[in-house]
């Protein structure tokens, strides 16, 4: 039954769907980010989901596990990204059983890309796939709306990311250590939160290395502070 539900998931592509969010839909307004470092990746996100001007969930977890060492950061439509992540998790589970080893980050990113590209007319999902595998170490892949796949040393996404392009271009340094990456991500997300109305709440981060996943949460006073006129 679960399989049938999933293969029918996107069947209404033929529906005249506007490539964008439908009225009344819940969106992860969002700021998401991922950075590669030697030994793994750091991922981070805010925690706000909105329906129009109402915050449906102020403590959302946008960092979703797809395998033990691979996570995805979700932005865009909450329903679309949750459904996609569930399907990808299912496929990667199969992949793990077939291969006899943990799936590679590149594989996970490609599964996301297949889904997002093939159904690009009816989906509104901007995803960052990041994780660690033993062949390539830490890797970050960006799958924005439309279904392109791009690997990079870091990636930003979501409505709040528009305010970060300058900051990340200026502040990113290759070969950072885990602690520096954490600072980099938390500062960036905090800046986006302060400027983007659709981002807010707490900052959730995770460090994915060969040892597994370590999660961090920054709430209230722990959020990095910048210039405030008071």
């Amino acid at each position, binding site marked *: 039954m*679960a399989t049938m539900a*999933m293969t*029918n*998931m996107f069947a209404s592509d033929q529906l005249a769907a506007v490539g964008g969010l439908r009225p009344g839909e819940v969106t992860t307004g969002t700021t998401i980010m991922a950075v590669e470092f030697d030994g793994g990746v750091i991922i981070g996100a805010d925690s706000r989901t909105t329906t129009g001007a109402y915050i449906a969930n102020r403590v959302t977890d946008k960092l979703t596990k797809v395998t033990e060492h691979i996570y995805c950061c979700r932005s865009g439509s909450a329903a679309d990204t949750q459904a996609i992540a569930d399907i990808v998790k299912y496929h990667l589970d199969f992949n793990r059983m077939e291969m006899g080893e943990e799936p590679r980050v590149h594989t996970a990113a490609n*599964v996301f890309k*297949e889904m997002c590209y093939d159904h690009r007319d009816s989906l509104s999902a901007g995803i960052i796939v990041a994780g660690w595998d033993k062949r390539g170490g830490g890797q970050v892949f960006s799958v924005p709306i439309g279904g392109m796949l791009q690997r990079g040393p870091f990636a930003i996404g979501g409505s709040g990311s528009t305010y970060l392009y300058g900051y990340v271009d200026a502040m990113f340094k290759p070969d950072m250590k885990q602690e520096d990456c954490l600072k980099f991500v938390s500062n960036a997300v905090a800046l986006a939160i302060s400027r983007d109305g659709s981002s807010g709440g707490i900052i959730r981060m995770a460090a994915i290395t060969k040892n597994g996943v370590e999660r961090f949460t920054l709430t209230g006073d722990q959020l990095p502070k910048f210039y405030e006129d008071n």
Partner: protein
Amino acid sequence: MKTIVRIPCVTTTSISNMAACAELPAGGFVFENCQRNKFLESQGYKVPKAYKTGTTICGLVYKDGIVLGADTRATEDTIVADKNCAKIHYISSNIYCCGAGTAADTEMTTQLISSELELHRLNTGRQPRVCTANRLLKQMLFRYHGYIGAALVLGGVDSTGPHLYSIWPHGSTDKLPFVTMGSGSLAAMATFEDRYKADLSRDEAMKLVRDAICAGIFNDLGSGSNVDLCVITKDKVDYIRPYEEANKKGVRQGKYRYDRGTTVVISSEVKKVELEVIDTEVRAVPMET
């Protein structure tokens, strides 16, 4: 009865083939009529109106389990269609679901998933889990792209503990310690945000849910009438309907009928009115045996 819905699928990706399954039976909801309906609408035919539950529904996790609450007003635009409708639906013996949005959609969706879950329970031999009900609901709602207007608060206690989910019509879900949905959700959420704490006692939890629903009833036009409550714990379920009759019908203060004899008859006259036969018609009516 398990109803499997088939939607004509134009694209078949490699992934769909990988997860290929048995032939799906025909019938069920199709989108083929959408164009025709749009055309009819443009020709002036009115779309049949859906009967909405204006609604305030909410739920919270307390020390021993879940408390779900709902108002009891169902509206058709500005008219109250039902003053005492039941918005807390049975999913399984340990899982209940409050529904806001289109009344028919919430009713049918919860019944469908309740049926699927019962079959699943017989198949697995285990008490169903709340996360299973959540998956079934979200996957169905996602498939219909928000056209099934069901906004749900799903709560229950299973072998892994108490769980509470809010499910939106497009198929996104949030797992939280307290949730509200419906037109009165903002008023109810304000109450929850002010007074919710982890590990409330049963009475505190029931009072808080009742207050949240009342906030919706008295401040939202789409919600009203009574408060229904459902308390779910590991061992039992208390379906309290009504928990409180917040809006009792008033007693009429006086009579508005005039007694016979109030107007005095002074005189009476009988007149014959001549009626002309204009048309005669003879029709054969088949006899029904």
